[in-house]
């Protein structure tokens, strides 16, 4: 197998044949933001966050799908790239309904991480506030399309790893949506094995385990009064009022 030598941001690196620029960058701890890419799944090349410049070409290339060639000179972090990446995250923020404060993954969200990474402090585009649906018909999981960034990781993992192919995309352009089977409620899907893989790989709070959402937690303050009363007075009966 032949080895290729090329340059990333002024340093020389070697790559095995077939490696992508992103793989080499990751191996060498060079940060390139990604969203649709996930190790183990096929590449999709669609979020465009990983675009890099290659000397000698006017075009930009996604690092996740582009293979280096001998003596190629790659730049991953130019002023232009930083500006474009920031704008892409801005576009994503404007597209969905990302109310982080009430989101299940607040603090563990790849979209949030990206926003920090590209130093996004405000969004210059008007929020689109789309009316997207939520499907909680599955016994274990929920999909909230308001938070979906259409990375298709769920589609790919379900097709390529679980081999169930529950998810697909319907519509086009800004109206694209992730659907289960032929746009049926997820809970009625005969193809879903409930393996949970899609939930694990979703970068945002669009797919989550039931019970994890803010507001889903059951609170019961009345039982404290019951316990104290029981201890003090040895009365082990709950009143109708307390049981409410």
């Amino acid at each position, binding site marked *: 197998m032949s080895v290729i030598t090329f340059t990333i941001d002024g340093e020389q690196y070697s790559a095995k044949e077939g490696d992508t620029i992103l793989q080499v960058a990751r191996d060498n701890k060079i940060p390139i933001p990604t969203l649709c890419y996930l190790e183990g799944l096929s590449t999709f*090349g*669609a979020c*465009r966050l990983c675009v890099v410049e290659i000397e000698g070409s006017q075009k930009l290339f996604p690092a996740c799908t582009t293979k280096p060639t001998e003596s190629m000179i790659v730049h991953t972090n130019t002023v232009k790239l930083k500006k474009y990446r920031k704008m892409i995250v801005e576009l994503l923020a404007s597209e969905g309904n990302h109310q982080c404060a009430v989101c299940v993954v607040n603090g563990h969200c790849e979209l949030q991480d990206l926003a920090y990474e590209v130093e996004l402090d405000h969004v*210059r585009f008007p929020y689109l506030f789309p009316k997207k649906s939520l499907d909680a018909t599955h016994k274990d999981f929920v999909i909230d399309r308001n938070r979906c960034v259409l990375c298709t990781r769920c589609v790919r993992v379900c097709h390529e790893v679980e081999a169930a192919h529950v998810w697909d995309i319907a519509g086009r352009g800004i109206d694209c949506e992730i659907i289960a089977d032929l746009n049926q409620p997820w809970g009625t899907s005969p193809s879903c094995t409930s393996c949970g893989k899609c939930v694990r790989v979703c970068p945002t709070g669009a797919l989550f385990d039931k019970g994890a959402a803010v507001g889903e937690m059951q609170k019961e303050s009345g039982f404290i009064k019951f316990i104290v009363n029981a201890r003090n007075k040895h009365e082990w009966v709950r009143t109708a009022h307390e049981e409410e």
Partner: protein
Amino acid sequence: MTVEDLRELAEKEQARQAEYEHRILYCSSAGCVSSGCDAVKNELKKAIGELGLSKKCEMIGTGCLGLCGEGPLVFVHSDPTLYQHVDATVARRIVEEHIGQGKKVKENEIDLNDPFFASQKKIVLENMGKINAESIEEYIAADGYEALAKALTEMVPEEVISEIRKAGLRGRGGAGYPTGLKWDIVRKGVADQKYIVCNADEGDPGAFMDRSVLEGDPHRVLEGMAIAGYAVGANQGFIYVRAEYPLAIDRLKTAIKQAERFGLLGNGIFESHFNFRIDIRIGAGAFVCGEETALLRSVMGRRGRPKVRPPYPSEKGLWDKPTVINNVETYANVAPILRNGSGWFAAIGTQKSPGTKVFAIAGNVKRPGLIEVPMGIALRKIVFDIGGGTPEGTTFKAAQAGGPSGGCIPTEHLDIPVDYESLQTVGAMMGSGGMIVIDNTSNMVEVAKYFSEFCMDESCGKCIPCRVGTKHIYMMLDKIVKGEATENDFELLKELCVMVKETSLCGLGQSAPNGVLSTVRFFKDEYLSKLKKSSEGNTHLNESSSVPVVKEA
């Protein structure tokens, strides 16, 4: 069928046609169908019958005659006369007076020396107004399938490719990629199966070049594809036509059946070892399915979504096999090149862009229609000599070339030669041949808004810059048109356009902002005059934005 059989057929058909003193050809393409050529056809037929002229005069339906805005058109072949606005009454008069008494119907005659015809050069459209669109015999009588016969009996595949390379033929679907080079890559690919695909998706609004070729001369495309199949070693072809073209689909089906019956498609063509079959795939009318990787996925029955190239279709196309994908017009040029030689073709047009280009002219122009011109012709000639200029009382403002993703070319660049490279220098592109003329009654911001709405609606939604970017571009233009935008909005719009252009995955997104960028370049005043003066604060932020804002440094 042997080559001798083919020649015999041609002679027989030529002799048959010579028996008639007159051939009346009515345009049977979609434009004239919609302006009423069926009634004309019926009346012609009736009149010929009633006057007992059927031994003397033959009537046939032919391909688009070019002046679609003046239809229905009728052409009398014997002493070449073209009639416009023909209705049943005029049709009867043509038969009675012109055919019967040798007197032309002056009121409806079009001057064939008009620059509309004189400035054109026909290769792809050479059979329009000559042959019956539904007759393989007539195609054969006009040298049809001669080129395929020549390739199969006199040339090895490498020679075919070398001829196409020497001719300098470039893809007519938009990007202008050298066709011979593409074929060569597929030829050299090692695989047990290869494919030929014809891109007849033609989704640009207002464009009908490819449709006209398929409706008027379908065998020319089949012949080109078969030659490509022989050149690269493929035995299967697919034509991907949009469902909105029912007449083209019908004619193609008829043509394929006829060619199979004559042994010009199928096994052992011209008694060689070459087998070639062609199937039709019907597209559901998404613009993005004209993009080659999306088209191939659609042919395979999957969702029509572009994917990252490389690998290119010539390495991994249909079912991951090496695949040639070319445009209708590209294939239509192949047979004439082999028949007349690469030198003949290379001498037409310019050195870097040889040959001709078919355009569909529409918009604010006196004579809209279908034209074919040598590459390198001045844009002025197309708009004024051929198109007749803008309607009375208006002045020319811009020509929009290259479809929804093309650019607007203003008056000061009217003398630009129309070829791939020159158009790019002014931010437009050749595209597949749509040309819309815009006069001073149109506002350029609204023109840009119209095209960006098209791109937004047609975005497949795969990549973020195009999916969300085109939406915001459209919304910002709408805001400008309504007079609600500020200078900051305008700056942001320009920034967004450049980003979408540079980062999108496929050609749709990469070219979607062209309409805005080119109108900003040449008609900036029209934008500025609609902007509100920036007042204090961050007026470029949407009022409904609920997020605390920090002014950008």
